[in-house]
């Protein structure tokens, strides 16, 4: 780990202009801490504690804002990464963004104006406990890290965890010949396993377990890990009741509670970027219309049609900048991303930065161009168990895992541990092998640097999309005897509306306030001294406000003032002579 740390620090010290790294590695807890300390030394950065995880590790947030002008009048973008253990690498992206912003402020015009107009909050790693597994021996992908639960309902907690049975340093998978087995070896690639398609006459031959023991003798293997409530399934939206993996109740996990309170406390957040397993910019997110009708109190899946249009445009721009083809998962129960959009009304860009492409072609033909224009490819991740290849024709469909292996081979990545015979103490003869932990999740240092560079570009492109309504005086007409009619237009030229449709419904955002300030001697005849604006469309959304005011003498000091938590501030003076 030490060399990594040094190179990162060196990068920080030497950076004279923002420059994308050649390679970006995954940060362990200490390395992340060191980077936060370095970043905290910048006058632009404020590092705050967000409490500790269940495992006692510190969770931290950063705030970046320049000292130019009134920083409280700016909208903010929140960058969240490291929502689960396997996606620990996304923390490196978030931290790299911050380093580039810090290094570029005052030097790079785009970065300077970005930070002078927009606050950036960053939570580089929420599941700090899960991320620790990335650096543990043996290596395992750990999704669950929270409160221990009795997965197999035998009265014991965590008695049968995944383990490195053959001592090769990786927790992979085990296949065992078993008459009850539902798995077969994929004919397309004997390293890959696929579920037997019984309808097509395929007969299962293997059982396919995670690597581990049956220490409690219940004929289930590695079924009860010690810590297995999943942090990013513990948020309140569509939380799964009575499922230990989701926590005893929403916000049971300390980091989740702290995160929720952070969101409630920071009303200046106008947009969230969440890097993790969910995605809504590459594929088309499900809308409420897709989800169909619902009864009172049912959890409506899918986003509002109005918001889907905004997401579609955001997705188009995102894909253009990043060329990312990883769709990511749809909204997961109890995820931060779902809570932010549905319950807090925040536009939340869910980004799955990378997945092993499924479109690799065997080298026999050249079809690159055609492929590029092809349909969006579903790149799901994680274990082979989730694969459910649907064949369109009669020829047996190659499993997704075999497609992944093809791509990995072509790119020279050794991602697979060959199946090796092993005499298992409980199961007898087994074969241990399969994908190395993190091999299907992490893009690798060089690719991660490239991915980060384009995602930094994407981040910079977002400031101008945030709603910042302007006030324009349309009319200041002297009607007679000091009576004036005043009208102003509130307009929003940005792509994003003042509130998402979900935000209008959830009534969670702070409405924009338009105040009429009158000097001594001026009197309001019609209109109201304060107006709350609960919605304003994007891309030219407009709203007019009118007043009748009687001025006795000069009206100096009269003004109309727009105040908001997340959409900036502005004012216009009324000069009456």
């Amino acid at each position, binding site marked *: 780990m030490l060399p990594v740390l040094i190179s990162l620090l060196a990068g920080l010290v030497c950076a004279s202009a923002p420059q994308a790294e050649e390679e970006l590695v995954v940060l362990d807890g200490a390395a992340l801490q060191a980077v936060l300390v370095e970043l905290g030394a910048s006058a632009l950065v404020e590092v705050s504690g967000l409490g500790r995880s269940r495992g006692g590790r510190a969770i931290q947030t950063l705030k970046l804002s320049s000292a130019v002008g009134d920083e409280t009048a700016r909208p903010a973008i929140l960058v969240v990464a490291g929502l689960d253990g396997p996606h620990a690498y996304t923390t490196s992206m978030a931290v790299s963004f911050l380093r580039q912003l810090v290094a570029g402020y005052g030097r790079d015009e785009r970065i300077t104006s970005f930070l002078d107009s927009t606050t950036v909050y960053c939570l580089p790693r929420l599941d700090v406990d899960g991320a620790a597994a990335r650096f543990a021996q043996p290596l395992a992908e750990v999704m669950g890290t929270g409160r221990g639960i*009795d997965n197999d*309902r*035998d*009265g014991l907690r965590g008695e049968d965890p995944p383990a490195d049975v053959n001592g090769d340093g990786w927790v992979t998978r085990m296949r065992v010949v078993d008459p009850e087995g539902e798995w077969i070896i994929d004919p397309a690639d004997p390293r890959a396993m696929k579920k037997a398609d019984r309808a097509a006459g395929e007969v299962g031959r293997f059982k396919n377990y995670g690597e581990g023991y049956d220490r*409690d*003798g*219940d*004929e289930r293997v590695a079924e009860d890990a010690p810590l297995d409530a999943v942090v990013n399934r513990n*948020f*309140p*939206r569509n*939380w799964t*009741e*009575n499922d230990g993996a989701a926590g*005893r*109740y*929403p*916000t049971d996990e300390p980091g989740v509670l702290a995160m*929720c309170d952070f969101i*409630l406390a920071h009303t200046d957040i106008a947009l969230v970027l969440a890097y993790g397993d969910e995605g809504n910019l590459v594929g088309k997110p499900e809308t409420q219309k897709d989800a169909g009708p619902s*009864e*009172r*109190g*049912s959890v409506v899946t899918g986003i509002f049609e109005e918001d889907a249009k905004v997401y579609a445009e955001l997705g188009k721009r995102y894909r253009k900048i990043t060329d990312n083809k990883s769709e990511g998962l749809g909204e997961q129960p109890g995820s931060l991303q779902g*809570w932010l959009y*549905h*319950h*807090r009304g925040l536009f939340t860009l869910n980004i799955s930065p990378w997945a092993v492409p499924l479109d690799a072609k065997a080298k026999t033909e050249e079809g690159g161009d055609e492929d590029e224009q092809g349909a969006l490819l579903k790149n799901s991740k994680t274990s082979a168990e989730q694969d459910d290849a649907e064949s369109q024709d009669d020829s047996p469909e190659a499993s997704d895992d075999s497609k992944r292996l093809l791509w990995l081979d072509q790119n020279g990545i050794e991602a697979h541990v060959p199946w090796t015979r092993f005499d298992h103490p409980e199961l007898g003869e087994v074969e241990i092998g399969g994908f190395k932990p993190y091999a299907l999740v992490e893009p690798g240092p060089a690719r991660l640097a490239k991915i980060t560079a384009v995602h930094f570009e994407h981040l910079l492109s977002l400031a101008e999309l945030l709603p910042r309504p302007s006030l324009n005086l349309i009319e200041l007409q002297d009607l007679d005897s000091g009576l004036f009619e005043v009208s102003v237009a509130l307009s929003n030229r940005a792509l994003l509306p003042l509130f998402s449709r979900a935000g209008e*419904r*959830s*009534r*969670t955002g*702070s*409405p924009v*306030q338009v105040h009429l300030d009158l000097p001594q001697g001026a009197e309001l005849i019609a209109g*109201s*001294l*304060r107006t*709350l604006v609960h919605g304003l469309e994007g891309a030219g959304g407009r709203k007019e406000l009118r007043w009748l005011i009687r001025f006795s003498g000069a009206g100096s000091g009269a003004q109309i003032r727009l105040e908001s*938590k997340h959409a900036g501030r502005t004012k216009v003076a009324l000069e009456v002579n």
Partner: protein
Amino acid sequence: MQALLCALALLLPQGESQATPDAPLQTGPDGLALHRPKKVDIAFNRLYDDVEIYALLDKILAAYPKLVSMQVIGQSIEGRELRVYTINNPDTGIDTEKPAMWIDANVHGNEIQGGEVAVYLVWYLMENYGTTERVTSLVDEFVFYVLPMVNPDGRHHWIHEVHSPHSSRTGYKPTDNDRDGAFDEDPADDLDGDGNITMMRKYAPGEGTHRINQDDPRIMERVPRDDRHLRGDWLMLGWEGVDNDGDGSINEDGFGGYDMNRAWPALWRPEFIQYGAGPYPLFWPETRCIADFLHEHSNVAAVQSFHNSGGMILRGPGGEIFGKYPRKDLQVFDELGRDGELMLPFYDYMIIWKDLYSVFGGFVTWTYEGLGIISFTNELMTSARLFPDKEKAPDSHWFDDNLHLGAGFVDWHPVNHPFYGEIELGGFRKDVGRVPPSFLIEEMLHRNALFCIKHAAAMPRVEIKSALVTPLGGDLAAVDVIFENLSLIPTRTARAAQEGIGAADCFTLEGPDIVVLAGGFRRDRWRPERIDLAEHEPARLLSEDGIGSRSQVRLRWIVRGSGPLTVGWSGQKARDVQQALAIP
């Protein structure tokens, strides 16, 4: 157990009663007319504030320090303690090893009288312990966790500040209900300074929506809308108040402004579906500390929560979308609910969503749906108690006029409103309607406390009905055991079994020289070979279903060896039982 009871009876301070030499010595049980003087004297014909409620319970605790203990489980928004008073006899074991009943009240700040039910229950159990046999055995066998006030802030403000019968329902975390960036800036205002928040009406001849009742000028009635020719002379302007924040609305951002009985993590829905739910479940400290307490006390096997008003014994589901509760659990709910209707003759046993209204994230729906515990909410006080025969009661004033001589009503009187000009104020005082009058309080407390006792007595009690060894030849033997739950409530509710809530029940057999070869639940009482054989670990048979309501579970183990052995049952909702046997 018998020997223990005698010893306890001797310990009771019978000689300490305050009877003077001249007074007749009365020794009858409490609740009957000629009962003996009390060790702790409490006036049960009035309601108390938050400090007094704790003081009363502390007094009972001081008189019965062995059986009553207190712990602070959390603090309210304004720093008031949330206290759980535990009734447990340490001589019969520590509390967490016995089934317990949870009782709470007053989550809605203005719904206060459940706090007094809690006090009465503790007092009744203690005053009758050692003298009323069934109280003694109940207290020896079971545990009571009593939290008299979930929302002591709401109670305090409702009692000590100006309020209507319906205000101060919320907790007191400042909340921006009108989303103008200011918190709690526009509450109701006591315009006439009389200590009451009543209704505002304005005389508007020919332009109003209401008129004065012909028989009783205190009563306002809406002019029927379908008659175009009828116009009222009065406008009703809502609760007493002004537009404190100048936004054009009156009383739209009062203190707090949320509902702590919509905050629980079962069928919880966000604010835009369920008013008062908060940004996430258990958002307020009062709710979170209770959730943690109940999660840490898996021995709680019965739950009762008190609200007002309406005279209801409520059970979930809170929303139609939930569907139906499992049939086996409904039998338990129904039996207790029907008994409740008899014990509380002015109350109806009802389903929340169906008979009242939809409640998402309610407390007792969570304790059942999320914790698997049979749970009720009682809505205390009903006008049916005031007017048993509604047909004959002339109007809502008749009771107040004749039994309080009009003391409950603030008659309409003029006031100058800063915005509406000349208006009139009038209405019932805050302690009329939702809480009973003084002379009916004790009856309400007793009936509801005894309904709790009824529910507590239904908590599971497991016994080993029989345990038999049958030699099978060689060194093999069969061990047949019948476990019985004597009570109405099963050791695992069907909900707990379905959802995998809490730990499964565990039936065990162990002996130093015994090898358990096989075992399982018997399917047929007559045919011993019909066994659902366990697939592994036959010495430790797990059961999600537990032992049903007043039911038996029959097991057979096939063992090898001889000598002493122990069979047993352990579970979360009843005391563990064991029995020693021997194979010759």
